[in-house]
């Protein structure tokens, strides 16, 4: 149980921070496709008798570089869709070859946060630090190019390289979070809290902190509720995330009825 809290906390911090840029850069589709597809890597590793986390990481990185390379000028919806389909197809094959079909696919898709063991903590912590370091390093170029690629480009920030770098960060975040909350649900943790946070503040650093806070409340309450009710953790993660987003929208409507108000900070 202590492991579950520790790992869920790390996942929430990473999802909150990386998710802020996912929402800012309108990269929700890659954020959906990379975790969904990356489970193919874990399935393959399972069949081959390798470490599933390693397989998942490799597959997520491959997808990120593929999407970034094939997508042109920030438009990577087609490349993302193709990468998603290819990886799902490969995942179907590896799951078909695997002996332990149902439990394996279930934990990969929906997570197994209550079953996290101590020796899984270290790799997750390592990936979390790597992610945070990379986001901190690229913080300003990511912010600037999220406003407009041309603004970054005029200051010597190569939009294409930055985009690939961001997708790699997304892949690393995926790799550490999928085994914990599952491929289907990490998406809700990366979109709901940051999308809710931006309703409450116009300051980027505050929005990031708020996004992390909402993600933390989401996973902590999900674990507690799951423990009490015996329902899947993922259910509560998804629902809490959606509720926090709805609350943010309601706040926006209530505090800014005219949609635009200059004094709103």
């Amino acid at each position, binding site marked *: 149980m202590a492991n579950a809290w520790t790992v869920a906390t790390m996942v929430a911090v990473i999802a909150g921070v990386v998710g802020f840029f996912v929402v800012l850069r309108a990269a929700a589709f890659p954020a959906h496709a990379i975790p969904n597809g990356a489970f193919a890597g874990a399935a393959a590793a399972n069949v081959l008798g390798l470490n599933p986390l390693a397989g998942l990481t490799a597959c997520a990185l491959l997808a990120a570089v593929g999407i970034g390379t094939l997508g042109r000028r920030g438009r990577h919806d087609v490349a993302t869709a193709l990468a998603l389909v290819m990886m799902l197809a490969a995942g179907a094959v590896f799951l078909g070859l695997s002996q332990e079909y149902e439990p394996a696919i279930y934990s990969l898709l929906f997570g197994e946060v209550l079953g996290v063991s101590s020796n899984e903590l270290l790799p997750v912590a390592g990936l979390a630090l790597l992610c945070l370091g990379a986001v901190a390093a*690229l913080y300003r170029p990511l912010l600037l190019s999220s406003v407009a690629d041309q603004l970054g480009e005029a200051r*010597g920030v190569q939009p294409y390289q930055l985009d690939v770098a961001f997708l790699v960060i997304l892949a690393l975040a995926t790799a550490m979070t999928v085994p914990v909350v599952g491929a289907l649900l990490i998406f809700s943790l990366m979109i709901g809290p940051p999308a809710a946070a931006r309703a409450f503040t116009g300051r980027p650093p505050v929005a990031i902190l708020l996004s992390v806070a909402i993600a933390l409340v989401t996973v902590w309450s999900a674990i507690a509720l799951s423990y009490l009710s015996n329902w899947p953790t993922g259910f509560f993660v998804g629902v809490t995330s959606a509720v926090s987003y709805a609350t943010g929208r309601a706040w926006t409507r209530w505090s800014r009825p005219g949609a*635009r108000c200059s004094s709103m900070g």
Partner: protein
Amino acid sequence: MSASESAPILEVENLSVSLSGRRVLDQVSFSVGTGEFTGLIGTNGAGKTTLLRAVLGMQVHDSGVIHLLGRPRSKRNHLIGYVPQKINLDPDMPMRARDLVGLGLDGHRLGVPLRTRSRNAAVEASLAAVGAESFGDARVGQLSGGEQQRILIAHAIISRPRLLLLDEPLANLDLHSGQEIVGLLAAIATEQKVAVLLSAHEINPLLPVMDRVVYLANGRAASGTTEEVIKTEVLSALYGHHVDVISVHGRILVVAGHEGLDHLTMSHDEVPG
């Protein structure tokens, strides 16, 4: 620095650029002097954006030379500030106008910005220079077009560039806001000794402040003072057709002399009074 004092801030010589095999700019030459206000005039598709992108180093060129302060342009340039063509900003984006202005100072740097006193002072000064103090705390995506234009200008000048490039800053503004932006840019050019190169498809709003004009048509350019360039002979040669330049109440109309070129009419009855 001694050599750079006398050199023009920007020198473009015989610049040719092709996009997808089509020659967009053909042997374009002009120069911009320190603190000068230059209008880059041409119809849609004349190559204005391509020319600005080439000066910025965002567009490779086939041939020709671009010199800044007498030296070949380096890859990344703090000498140039840039205001791109209308960008669509998400109104929900969690970024205040002042955050975007601050990124003009260090948005290309790695790491997290430190809130130093000098950084804050630079942001305040830049907001004041464009008259944006009152909406510095508003979300940049929720500002009006004219207000966003001011913030983008503040973003571009905060790093104290010597040359400010603006791509169609008046295109999406009503006449009054457009005049305000032009007046503001003229004041900034004088006060901060920054040369302004501004593209527009309409010459009249710029007439009161423009020192020089670069007129683009058919991929070629004519440059000089307004009197030197906006003449029937010069523009007819540039277009390859006869055009008439008519001056009415201090406004200039460029009228195609042949049928099929009616869209080149450059002015309408927009100016009140």
